[in-house]
């Protein structure tokens, strides 16, 4: 395969590759020539801005990024057949976005697209290009490196935040979350680590920290973000996904103590299995049911309001568990009657 020639091609001369696996997979369900809308669906360019999956770029972000940059950074790859047909073998989504810009009369010149043109490729060559582009692909940066770069753009190079957001495809939430998470890690975690102790894989923990419920629960319980960094360093939270459970743990006095002494796993065990007094343990279901009915009917208005305001409160969860268990028990009893 030769190295191809780099050129600007008029988009109306290039065909979308209907044999491309991504498009073909979708079009196999259709008979005849696919419409433009069907190809759009196949390329998922109508898919909106849903969350990234495994670091891939959503069509919406790609579209916004192309708009902001007034073009694409990497040329598409085009196969010029012996009969002169030009078929896009890599970059169909980008080509489709250019075509949609022209159709929608988006400001700017979208009629020409940068392309690397290969003449008369063999089927083997086409497969090689597709495999390298989609199965090997460029090595994406890890989340920490992306955040560090965004932070440096904003903090050191003083690039306005709006500009960074536009260049990244328009998700203000993703950009601000990454910068804030990186900033918190630098501010609270780096100072307590030795040089060889600083673990960039802990970055995802600082992303979890940006959840409003998590951060509020830490501050509400009288801790600081420095304490959070210490928990991460000391291993009180080994599985960083468990950070989402911090509001439950920190809201429960005993679980909180266990968490500080041991770790979040042990603390969650306490939350899952609250200690019952000897008296309660010895009570029958009938006695407990009567006591529960009495307590529910005489709940104070301020307690009710507190639970309404705090749907994550453990008490709400216990009530839901009890409701479910009693409902199931009653069904069993009625079935036997």
């Amino acid at each position: 395969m030769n190295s191809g020639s780099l050129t600007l091609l008029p988009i109306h001369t290039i065909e979308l590759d209907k044999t491309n696996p991504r498009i073909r997979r979708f079009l196999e369900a259709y008979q005849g020539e696919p419409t433009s809308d069907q190809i759009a669906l196949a390329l998922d360019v109508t898919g909106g801005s849903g969350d990234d999956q495994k670091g891939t770029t959503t069509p919406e972000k790609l579209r916004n990024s192309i708009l902001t940059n007034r073009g694409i950074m990497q040329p598409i790859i085009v196969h010029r057949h012996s009969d002169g047909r030009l078929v896009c073998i890599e970059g169909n989504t980008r080509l489709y976005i250019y075509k949609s810009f022209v159709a929608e009369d988006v400001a700017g010149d979208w009629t020409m697209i940068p392309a690397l043109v290969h003449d008369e490729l063999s089927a083997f060559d086409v497969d090689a290009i597709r495999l390298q582009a989609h199965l090997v692909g460029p090595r994406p940066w890890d989340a920490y490196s992306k955040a560090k770069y965004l932070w440096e753009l904003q903090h050191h190079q003083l690039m306005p935040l709006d500009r960074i957001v536009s260049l990244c495809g328009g998700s203000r939430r993703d950009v601000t979350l990454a910068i804030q998470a990186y900033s918190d890690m630098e501010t609270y975690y780096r100072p307590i680590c030795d040089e060889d102790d600083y673990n960039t894989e802990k970055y995802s923990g600082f992303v979890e920290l940006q959840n409003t419920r998590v951060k509020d629960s830490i501050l509400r319980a009288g801790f600081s973000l420095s304490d959070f960094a210490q928990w991460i360093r000391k291993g009180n939270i080994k599985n960083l996904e468990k950070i989402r459970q911090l509001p439950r743990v920190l809201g429960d006095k005993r679980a909180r103590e266990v968490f500080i002494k041991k770790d979040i796993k042990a603390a969650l065990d306490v939350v899952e299995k609250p200690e019952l007094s000897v008296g309660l343990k010895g009570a029958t279901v009938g006695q407990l049911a009567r006591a529960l009915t009495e307590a529910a009917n005489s709940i104070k208005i301020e307690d009710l309001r507190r639970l309404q305001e705090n749907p994550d409160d453990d008490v709400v969860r216990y009530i839901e568990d009890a409701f479910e268990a009693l409902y199931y028990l009653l069904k069993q009893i009625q079935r036997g009657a």
Partner: protein
Amino acid sequence: MSGESRAHTNLVENLIDAVESRHKHLRGFTMFADHHSFGNDRPPMIGGFTPDLFASDVPESFRIIGEAKTSLDLDNERTHFQIRAFLEHLSLRPNGMFYLAVPLFAGPRARYLVKSCLKSDGTKVITEVLTFL
């Protein structure tokens, strides 16, 4: 759109303009609002409620929550819970600001409401009622 929701949208738009004109010059300022012009950049949920506006700088040194209420909405229980949740959230951080946008004639009632929702423990949240015609 009903008259009531139109009135609320107008208040949200006025609130966005007011917060922008006061704070946008600050470096790293970023804003999320429950308004179609913000697309997916909606405010986060806070204490079980989603405010109409959320803003801060990045990295964060201040945080702003804005809420718009029509006259009819001002006196209900949900509004009390909402404002209390927002104020409690802001009180956990330094430099918290809460803006309540209301119609002009609802200003005194709104000020009383915010005052009654503020805890008497010396919480240092800056609050302001913004009134619009």
